[in-house]
């Protein structure tokens, strides 16, 4: 660990304003011509790099940090997100990723399943390559309740000592993971879009920050277990194996650990609604559409292709679309086989939610549009001219195939 030192003798009236401007976080302030560090400092080092030479330096702290024994922690555990409608697919995606990570450090892959009457469901995970599924099966765990679930999670970590824990970034996972991570005073990185394993069992976690306009690479260098959450559809589920080798382990926990004063009054299944994150083919519309009526073009193209119609944030914000049609960090993540974007600029906010798609065809009149950075096919042109002709061609091709 290190801290910043301001060398006061190098600060003067001329350069103080310049340094203040360098910091994007408000981490520096001036008081009576003196330069001070504030709580806004994120230790990004921009002031060291771009400020007057030597004015601010980074000094290593004298007291050495005690290094933990990482070899006492082994295995990558995936939290099994499930409800009465079954196991959430994000779980399988994380198992696939856990296997990749585990192959670097030769660790086992675990799954933790908490609930009631779940043995069969737990068994079904083995075919995705889990070495051991730890099952806590109690009537008190029928519904998700924070305290009993967190206690069970804690019990699992204490008994099994996994090095890493991956949790799906569902609403449930995003509440449970921080509660457990805080209990162990360890690191948790939200919404990772890329995970890589280092030889020393640290996971390199990459996630978008600032609405996705920059990427941050994060590690948990000196605490275990290391927690990460990942959204649905970021990784791919592995193919099931015919002869799974793993096994189930039934776990026990004291009854008083399952108690809570929280009482569930009702559970209502939501109506199944169209979900663009499940769609294989998507046509997405953006600000290139001048009026709401013009969206008919996009809708017609989508219909011909059997595609779902989606949109970027501005169109959801102007109420041309319902929010559940919105792709992006503040909307849904999609992993389509084919995605056609029409008139979408492609801010990272948007692309973070779609760049995992297999084939991306982007139409935009601006040759410098950011969307082309992630597109497989960059089509520079006017959607108002291209789309109607494309619709005609698709209709012809369809008619031809039928005849």
């Amino acid at each position, binding site marked *: *660990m290190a801290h910043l030192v301001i060398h006061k003798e190098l600060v003067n009236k001329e350069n103080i304003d310049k340094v203040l401007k360098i910091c994007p976080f408000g981490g520096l302030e001036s008081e009576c011509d003196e330069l001070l560090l*504030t709580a806004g400092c*994120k230790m990004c080092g921009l002031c060291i790099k771009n400020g007057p030479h030597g004015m601010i330096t980074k000094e290593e702290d004298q007291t050495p940090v005690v290094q933990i024994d990482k070899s006492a922690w082994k295995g990558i555990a995936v939290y099994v997100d499930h409800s009465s409608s079954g196991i959430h697919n994000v779980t399988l995606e994380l198992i696939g990723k856990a296997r990749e990570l585990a192959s670097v450090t030769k660790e086992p892959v675990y799954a933790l399943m908490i609930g009631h009457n779940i043995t069969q469901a737990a068994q079904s995970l083995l075919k995705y390559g889990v070495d051991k599924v730890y099952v806590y099966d109690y009537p008190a765990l029928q519904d998700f309740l924070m305290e009993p679930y967190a206690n069970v999670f804690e019990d699992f970590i204490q008994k099994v000592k996994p090095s890493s824990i991956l949790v799906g970034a569902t609403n449930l996972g995003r509440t449970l993971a921080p509660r457990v991570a*805080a209990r162990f005073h360890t690191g948790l990185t939200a*919404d990772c879009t890329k995970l890589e394993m280092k030889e020393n069992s640290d996971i390199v976690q990459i996630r978008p920050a600032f609405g996705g306009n*920059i990427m941050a690479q994060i590690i948990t260098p000196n605490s275990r277990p290391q927690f990460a959450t990942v959204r649905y559809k970021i990784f791919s589920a592995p193919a099931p194996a015919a002869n799974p080798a793993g096994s189930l382990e039934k776990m026990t926990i004291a009854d008083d650990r399952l108690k809570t004063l929280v009482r569930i009054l009702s559970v209502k299944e939501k109506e199944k609604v169209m979900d663009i994150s499940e769609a294989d083919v998507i046509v997405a519309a953006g600000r290139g559409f001048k009026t709401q009526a013009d969206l008919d073009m996009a809708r017609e193209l989508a219909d011909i292709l059997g595609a779902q119609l989606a949109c970027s944030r501005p169109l959801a914000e102007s109420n041309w679309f319902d929010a559940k049609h919105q792709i992006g960090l503040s909307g849904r993540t999609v992993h389509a086989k084919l995605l056609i974007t029409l008139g979408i600029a492609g801010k990272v906010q948007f692309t973070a939610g779609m760049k995992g798609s297999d084939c991306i065809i982007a139409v935009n009149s601006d040759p410098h549009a950011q969307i082309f950075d992630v597109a497989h*096919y960059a089509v520079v042109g006017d959607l108002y001219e291209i789309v109607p*002709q494309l619709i005609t061609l698709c209709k012809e091709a369809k008619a031809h195939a039928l005849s």
Partner: protein
Amino acid sequence: MDILVCVKQVPGSSDVEVDPVTGVLKREGFSTKLNPYDLYSIEMAMSLREKYGGTVRAITMGPPQAKQALLETVWMGADGGVLLTDRAFGGADCLATSYALSQAVHKMSSYDLILCGKQTTDGDTAQVGSELSEELGIPNIGNAISIKLEREGFITVTQNLDDRIVTAEIPLPCLVCVDGDINSPRLPSYKRSKQVPQNAFTSLTLKDIEDQDKTHYGLLGSRTNVERIFPPEKNADRKTLTGTSSELATQISDILKTGKFIG
């Protein structure tokens, strides 16, 4: 019901770019605003106070200028607020942030309910609320869409839990993270902005809280470490299609045919 609302000051715009050569963050000016997601939790706190009485106080951690975020909550109707600020808190990750907040909460007078927003627009982690409840050892619930007081000592919370809507009764004191878009946040009142009482705000520094061990806060207390920041990757093997509009339409339809998406 006495309510604490956790708020945060965030950058006014997330339009930041990283210089691909130097890896330096490029940012025009430095404007800030109250985290938009906090507006829903503030509104929730106001409507609970209107229905059941009590007080609403805001709490934030940040540099001295983060006081502005507290001011805005008072303009919206909060009774006052606490600014937790100290150099020792700088560079904190979610864990160190929630620990510092928990220490500040211990210093404040008693409360029944802590409300947090769903997430912030700069970090987007949605983790601090849940971590804070763990540090305080109180029950918590996330993604709340409604809160009612139906039985003494408990609140009834309806929660958006992925594929289901769950209604649960939680004992007070507890912490609730409020979902986004669940109400229409009131606008700051001009009148209130002119009548902010002198003693509406207090500041807490490391010296004012119980645990004064610097290694528990800020960068030293953080368990995660940002190794580097970089611009998002670009797709290297993209193909640029050129030609007239009709040529472009033909090329696209050929791609669709080859990929068996039509025909």
